[in-house]
C-alpha cells in the first residue's frame, strides 16, 4: 500500500502552518496555546511511531531525547545567541537563529540516539524498553548535575520563539519525513523488521541497522520537539522529561495504533485536548473537582483496556495488508 498523498499532505500542512503563523496574533491566546501544543505532540507521537510502531521496537525514553533537544536549543538561544548575534538584532535574525537552534537540537538528540541505540538495539522487546527507560533516567541525572544548565532547577527565561508557524511547520516536516521514509524502498526494511525480525535477517537484511536508523530519526524529531517545547513554556527542568512524559507519548502512539500515522496524529490531538477537557469538567462544579487529577489513572485504564480489546489502536479501521497486529 503506497502513500502517494504524503507530499500532498505536506503541502497542505505547510500552507496551514503559514496561515496559522499569520493568524497567531488574531486568535484567542488560549487556542494558540492549545494548537501549539498539538503541533509539538504530533511531532513527538509521529516520531516515536517510527520506532515503536513501524519498526516494532519499544522505546520508553522518548522524553529523554526531547530533553536533550530542549536543553541544546535553550542553551543556544539563551547563552550563545546574545554573544554571537549583534545587539538589537531584528525579528528575522532572531527567527533564523531559532531555526539554527532547532536544527542543533535535533542533531544533538540524534547523536544521543545513536549513542544509546547502537549498543542497545541488538536487544529485543522488553530489554530495549528497560534500557531506553534507563536512558531517560540517566539523562535527567546528567542535567541535574550540570550546574551551568541550571542543575535541578533547570533553565528559566528562555525567549519565547515558538509560535504556531514553527510548531506546525515542524509537525508537517516530521509527518512528511516519517511517511516518506517508511514508504520508500529503503523503508520496507522497517516494516520487515517489525513483522518478523528473524525472517528479515534470514533474507540478509541488517535489522540492527534499520532499528538504529529508525531510532536516530525518531530522536532527531524528538529533539526538535524539545526545542520547540522549551521556547514555548519558557522554562525547562530535568523533571519535565522523565518517565511520565515518555509514557504520555507512548500512550498517544498506542491509542492511535502502532504504525498508523493518521491514527497517531488523531490520538496526539485528542490526548492534548483531554487534559483541557478534564480541567473544564473539574472547574465546572466543586463536586467534579476530582476529575482534574484523574489523567494518569485514565491513561492506565486506557492502556490496559486497549491491549485487551483493541491492540491495534482506536483509530485503525483498515488492517494493513498482510500485517501482523502486534
Amino acid at each position, binding site marked *: 500500500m503506497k502513500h502517494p498523498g504524503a507530499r500532498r499532505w505536506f503541502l497542505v500542512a505547510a500552507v496551514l502552518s503559514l496561515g496559522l503563523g499569520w493568524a497567531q496574533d488574531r486568535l484567542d491566546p488560549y487556542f494558540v496555546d492549545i494548537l501549539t501544543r498539538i503541533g509539538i505532540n504530533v511531532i513527538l507521537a509521529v516520531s516515536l511511531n517510527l520506532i515503536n510502531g513501524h519498526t516494532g521496537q519499544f522505546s520508553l525514553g522518548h522524553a529523554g531525547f526531547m530533553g536533550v533537544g530542549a536543553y541544546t536549543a535553550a542553551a543556544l538561544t539563551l547563552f550563545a545567541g546574545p554573544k554571537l548575534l549583534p545587539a538589537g538584532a531584528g525579528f528575522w535574525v532572531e527567527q533564523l537563529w531559532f531555526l539554527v537552534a532547532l536544527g542543533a537540537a535535533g542533531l544533538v538528540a540524534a547523536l544521543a540516539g545513536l549513542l544509546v541505540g547502537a549498543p542497545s538495539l541488538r536487544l529485543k522487546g522488553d530489554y530495549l524498553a528497560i534500557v531506553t527507560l534507563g536512558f531517560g533516567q540517566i539523562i535527567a541525572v546528567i542535567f541535574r548535575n550540570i550546574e551551568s544548565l541550571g542543575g535541578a532547577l533547570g533553565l528559566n527565561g528562555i525567549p519565547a520563539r515558538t509560535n504556531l508557524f514553527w510548531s506546525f511547520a515542524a509537525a508537517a516536516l516530521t509527518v512528511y519525513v516519517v511517511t516518506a521514509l517508511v514508504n520508500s524502498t529503503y523503508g520496507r526494511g522497517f516494516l520487515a523488521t517489525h513483522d518478523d525480525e528473524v525472517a528479515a535477517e534470514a533474507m540478509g537484511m541488517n535489522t540492527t541497522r534499520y532499528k538504529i536508523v529508525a531510532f536516530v530519526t525518531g530522536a532527531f524529531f524528538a529533539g526538535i520537539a524539545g526545542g520547540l517545547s522549551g521556547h514555548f513554556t519558557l522554562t525547562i527542568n530535568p523533571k519535565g522529561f522523565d518517565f511520565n512524559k515518555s509514557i504520555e507519548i507512548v500512550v498517544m502512539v498506542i491509542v492511535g495504533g502502532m504504525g498508523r500515522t493518521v491514527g497517531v496524529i488523531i490520538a496526539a490531538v485528542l490526548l492534548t485536548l483531554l487534559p483541557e477537557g478534564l480541567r473544564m469538567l473539574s472547574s465546572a462544579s466543586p463536586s467534579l473537582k476530582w476529575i482534574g487529577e484523574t489523567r494518569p489513572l485514565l491513561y492506565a485504564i486506557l*492502556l*490496559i483496556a486497549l491491549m485487551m480489546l483493541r491492540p491495534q489502536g482506536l483509530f485503525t479501521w483498515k488492517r494493513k495488508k498482510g500485517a501482523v497486529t502486534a
Partner: protein
Amino acid sequence: MSEFIQQIINGLSVGAMYALIAIGYTLVYGVLRFINFAHSDVFMVGSFVGFYSGKVLGGTSWAGGLGVMAASMVGCALLGILIERLAYKPLRSRSKLTVLITAIGVSMLLQNVGQLVFGTNPQPFPDTLPATTFQVGGVVVSSKDLVVLGFTLCLLGALEYIVLKTKVGTAMRAVAFNPQAASLMGINIDWIISFTFGLGSALAAAGGFLWAYKFPRIEPFMGVAPGLTAFVAAVLGGIGNITGAALGGLLLGVIETLVKGSRWSTWTEAIAFVLLILILLFKPAGLLGRVQAEKV
C-alpha cells in the same frame, strides 16, 4: 575504615531487599518470559498492607512484626495472582509487547489507585519490629540492618527449598524449561503460573515491609526506584536465575550505598542503569545466566 564497614553493612541490607524484589522479576520472567512492570508496585502495596495491619495490631514486638509481615505477604500474593488472572492471562497468546504494555498499564493503575486510596503524602510507618543500635569495635550497627539481612536469608532459604525440593518447585522449573512439554507431562500450567506470581509477590511484599521498616516513610510511588534497581539486579545476575537475582541485588545494594556515601552521591540514581547498559553490552546473559539460542 569503620565508616566503610558501616556502609557495607548498610549496603548489604539494602541489597537484600533488592534481592527480594529481583527474585519476583526473575521468577515471572522464567515462566512467562516478560518483565512484570507492576511488580514494583506490588512491593509498594506490600508496605501499605504492613502499614495498615501494623496500625490495627499496634505495639512493637517480634511476634507482632512477624504477623504484620505475614499479612502483607499473603495480601500481596493474592494481589499478584489476581493481576495475573485478570490482566496477563487473557493475553498469553498475544505478542510479548502487548503484555509488556499491559504490565506498564497495571503498574500505573496500582500507583494511581494507591494515590486515591492511601493519599499522596508520605506516611510514617509504625515501628512494628523492635530496633536498637549497638557498637562492635567502633562500628555502629543498626539492628534493623541485621534484621533485614536475617529475614531475607530465611526467606531465600525457604524459596530455595520450595523451588528445589518440593513438587510445586519441580513443576515450576519444568514450566520454565519448556511449557509445552511440562503441560504434556500433566502439569497444570495455569496453576503453576499463578503460584509463581503468588510466590514472587509475597517476596516483594516482604521486601516492601522490610523497606518500610528500614526507611519508615511510605508513599504510592515508593516502588518505582527500588523496583527498577531490582530489575537491573535481576538482569545483572542473569534473568531467570534465582541465585543470580539474589547476588545481583546484594551487589547493586552495596555499590549504590558506596556511591551515595562518596562525593559522587548526586549520580546515585544513574548507577544502576549505567551498569545495566554495560552488562547488556558485554555479558547479556548476566553473571550466572546461560546464553540461550532463540527458537524460531
